[in-house]
């Protein structure tokens, strides 16, 4: 029942937050944080199982109930090490997102926290569903609230960005739906009954071309979400226009659902096709890494810049997944976790800057270190984490990915490694441009740094950033604690594919 509870708490919490907005405008955020903490507590109850020797088993939780018997659809949930890590990331960033919205969202705060919690509920469903219909259900449920967050609380060009985000993900989602239904139908042809059960569908045998087509349906949907190079154009718009909390959720959590889908479904369900497709996927991963790093360098809008770096880092995830060996997958998972934290933090910093300076244009910033020492220090830390400094989580992830990919394709790995160089360039360039040098118009003019109106980080913000710093250092210094957790799950996934 635990998964049902996780999701119900967020759904109900969201409704309560909405209703409570009428009573007092600060009540919703308290309810939201409370609901998230209840969820974390629920998840923590799973940890003892982990230590009592169950660690070798793949599934910590497996639940199954009838839902729509006509099509053999079940409410089927499962949590393994991989899901568990993703769930912790989701809830952690959920709390961080509440923190980043704490003072930013004043208008209609009840409805905002409603959307926030419902997005998270959808994400939790995605990370735990083992029935493909159910998975798709949650895949779509998380979109509408996210659309509303961008469309209502976003910045100047929000209508365009929100629409683009929605259309990209929704249309690729339609392909996913079609692919899922095809798979279920072939199951009914071969076995005699409809099934959307993850385990039963693995038994479906498709011939080459068909398998490739159905696999592509899955791949396109997940790749759009990840996002992968030719399908990434929604992301810079969505990120730059979303409010800070929205960017945090998008970069930290929603992108990870795409990677999770690839690891959990797109490859294990279609081993043959995935194997054939792997070189293509790895190639576009490398193109994505290099091309988007280059694009990042060309941006003036700080949020767009971070958005492009996200796409670039997600290229590593894709590379690790399609290397399809333990090192590569471990690397992909570590990158997902570390990027979740570092990108969320960077978006918070960008949001913080925008809140203080009323601009995202880096041309108008400069020399902020003197006025905002704490914020600048945090920015330096997270930029360095993002560029892959050894000792922090991102390094472990990308290093493992490269190790894994090296066994499969040397040329592509060498090219991908160049991405690390580019990452250093743009990260340090941002620091140089925003925090060093001499001040520009916005920071000295009406924005009012000179007049002393701009304040440095508040206690609350400091708390959020510190939590993320600790997380990244932990990942960098003692990655084994995460690798141990995900290994049984990844072993099991690999076992199904490699003969």
């Amino acid at each position: 029942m635990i998964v049902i509870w996780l999701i119900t708490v967020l759904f109900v919490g969201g409704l309560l937050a909405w209703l409570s907005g009428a009573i007092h405008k600060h009540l919703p955020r308290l309810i939201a944080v409370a609901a998230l903490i209840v969820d974390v507590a629920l998840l923590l109850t799973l940890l003892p199982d982990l230590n009592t020797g169950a660690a070798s088993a793949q599934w910590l939780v497996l639940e199954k109930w009838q839902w729509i018997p006509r099509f053999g659809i079940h409410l089927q949930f499962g949590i393994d090490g991989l899901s568990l890590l993703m769930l912790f990331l989701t809830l952690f960033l959920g709390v961080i997102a509440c923190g980043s919205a704490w003072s930013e969202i004043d208008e209609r705060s009840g409805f905002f926290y409603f959307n926030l919690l419902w997005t998270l509920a959808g994400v939790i469903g995605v990370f735990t569903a083992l029935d493909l219909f159910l998975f798709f259900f949650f895949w779509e449920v998380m979109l509408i609230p996210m659309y509303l967050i961008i469309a209502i609380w976003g910045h100047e060009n929000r209508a365009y960005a929100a629409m683009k985000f929605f259309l990209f993900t929704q249309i690729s989602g339609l392909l996913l739906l079609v692919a899922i239904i095809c798979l279920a139908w072939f199951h009914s042809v071969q076995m005699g009954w409809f099934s959307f059960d993850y385990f039963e569908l693995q038994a479906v045998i498709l011939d080459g071309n068909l398998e490739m087509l159905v696999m592509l349906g899955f791949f396109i949907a997940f790749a759009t979400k990840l996002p992968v190079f030719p399908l990434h154009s929604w992301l810079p718009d969505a990120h730059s226009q979303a409010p800070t909390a929205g960017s945090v959720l998008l970069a930290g959590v929603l992108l990870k659902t795409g990677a999770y889908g690839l690891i959990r479904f797109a490859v294990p369900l279609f081993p043959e096709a995935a194997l054939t497709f792997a070189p293509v996927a790895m190639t576009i991963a490398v193109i994505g890494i290099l091309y988007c790093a280059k694009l990042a360098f060309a941006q003036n809008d700080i949020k767009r810049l971070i958005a492009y770096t996200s796409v670039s880092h997600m290229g590593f995830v894709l590379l690790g997944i399609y290397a399809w060996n333990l090192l590569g997958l471990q690397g992909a998972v570590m990158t997902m976790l570390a990027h979740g934290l570092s990108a969320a933090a960077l978006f918070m910093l960008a949001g913080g800057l925008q809140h203080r300076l009323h601009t995202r244009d880096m041309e108008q910033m400069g020399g902020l270190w003197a006025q905002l020492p704490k914020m600048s220090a945090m920015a330096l830390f997270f930029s360095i984490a993002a560029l892959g400094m050894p000792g922090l989580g991102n390094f472990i992830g990308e290093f493992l990915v490269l190790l894994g990919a090296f066994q499969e394709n040397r040329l592509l790995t060498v090219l991908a490694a160049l991405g690390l160089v580019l990452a250093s360039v743009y990260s340090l360039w941002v620091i140089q441009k925003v925090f060093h040098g001499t001040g520009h118009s916005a920071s000295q003019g009406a924005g009012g740094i000179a007049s002393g109106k701009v304040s440095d980080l508040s206690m609350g913000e400091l708390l959020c950033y510190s939590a993320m710093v600790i997380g990244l250092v932990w990942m960098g210094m003692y990655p084994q604690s995460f690798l141990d957790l995900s290994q049984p799950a990844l072993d099991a996934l690999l076992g199904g594919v490699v003969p």
Partner: protein
Amino acid sequence: MTWEQISLLLPIILVSAAAVLTMLMIAVKRSHAMSCLMTALGLALALVSLFAVAPVLQQQVTPLLLIDAFNGFFTALILLTAIFITLFSYPYMSNLEQPQEFYLLISLATLGALVMAGSNHFVSAFLGIEILSVSLYGMIAYPLHRPVAAQYPLEASIKYLVLSAVSTGFILFGLALLYAQTGTLSFSSITALAADAATGPGSAYFGVASVLILAGFAFKLSLVPFHLWTPDVYEGSPLPATAFLATIGKAAMVALLVRFLLLTDIAGTETAVTVIAVLAAASILAGNLLALLQSNLKRLLAYSSVAHMGYLLIALIGMDASADAIGQEAILFYLSAYVLTTMGAFGVMMLVSDSGHERDHLNHYQGLFWRSPWLATVFTAMLLSLAGIPLTVGFIGKFYIVVAIVENGLWWLLAALVTGSGIGLYYYLRVIYRMLMPLTDTMDLPEVSLRDFVPHALLFALLLGVIILGVAPGILIDHLAEVAQSMN
């Protein structure tokens, strides 16, 4: 005719009685509330009587009507929708001087729809179509004597009258040819004769007849390329009439078409499949494309209904008499979802408007979220359901359609569906975004209040229906599976 058979006709009889009684009552004393109540009561009684006769369903009553589970389902759907429209009409019509006869027309039109849903003979089908259409002419032109009312009721009514008459002419001519060839007008006996007719001498007659009849049906369902009247008539009519046209008008026609295709076995022939598939694809693409740039919500919903009928038509291809055919179920489910959702969307519009002020422009809905969160939430849910987003019944409907397509291997229709749905998202979302935009003071904003308890309760019921059937569709699916079984 036995008493049992008469009892099977109870819904039809009760609706007719309600119409007569309402008319008499209007002659004695004009009272808006009473005539509305009387009509709603008559429709409700008919609905209740349906449950009474449910155990003895499945009988041919006279050569004209086949009363079975399939008919029962459609009767329930039509009556329920009619009750909703009747009750929604009350606040909408309340500032007209003589709104009473409108309810009379509602009962009569419902009667026509019921006859259509029950017929398995061309005579009763034609009778039903005409009762429905003639009542609709009146409903569409109803607020004519109010200068500030819906902008073009007369234009809409005449347009509907002329084009409807033309399509009826098509059907009649087709019937004549069919009769000349086979000597019968009963759906089920056409089958046997048609087999010879299709190959024997004069087989050209049969082909032409089928084309003419299909064209007539396609007009009533507003399928591309017979859709041209739809947006104008939707826009010009008062909202209750538009809602009637969009829900019951379509449902009754679908019932008739399904009956016709199933009983005559035409659905299985290759020509019919091709024709239907082309109509479906054209409707999906053209409907969605034309809806893209509409700023009038009625026109937008008109084009979207064209597209939805296209989706529905896909399931029609999947229909056959085999035991586990998904087609019938898909049609029934999709239609229920469509009617429920469309009713909800028009319900919101009716509450925002009244017969003096038709609020059908996108501008009227700007900032509705902040002015009336309740109505905006319902409207959003309905639009999302039309777009087929999970948590709503529309999603399950779309799921059914995709299953039907995959089962029949109609891959190019799948491409049309994906493209169409993708385009559809844009214009539904555009409306939602409008409702989210901040308010501006200068606009003429409709008063939205909770003055009328009943319509708001109805909206709540519709919202609940859309969400419950979206989350737990099993309730409806089980029932529909039984109905679909009984059709074979």
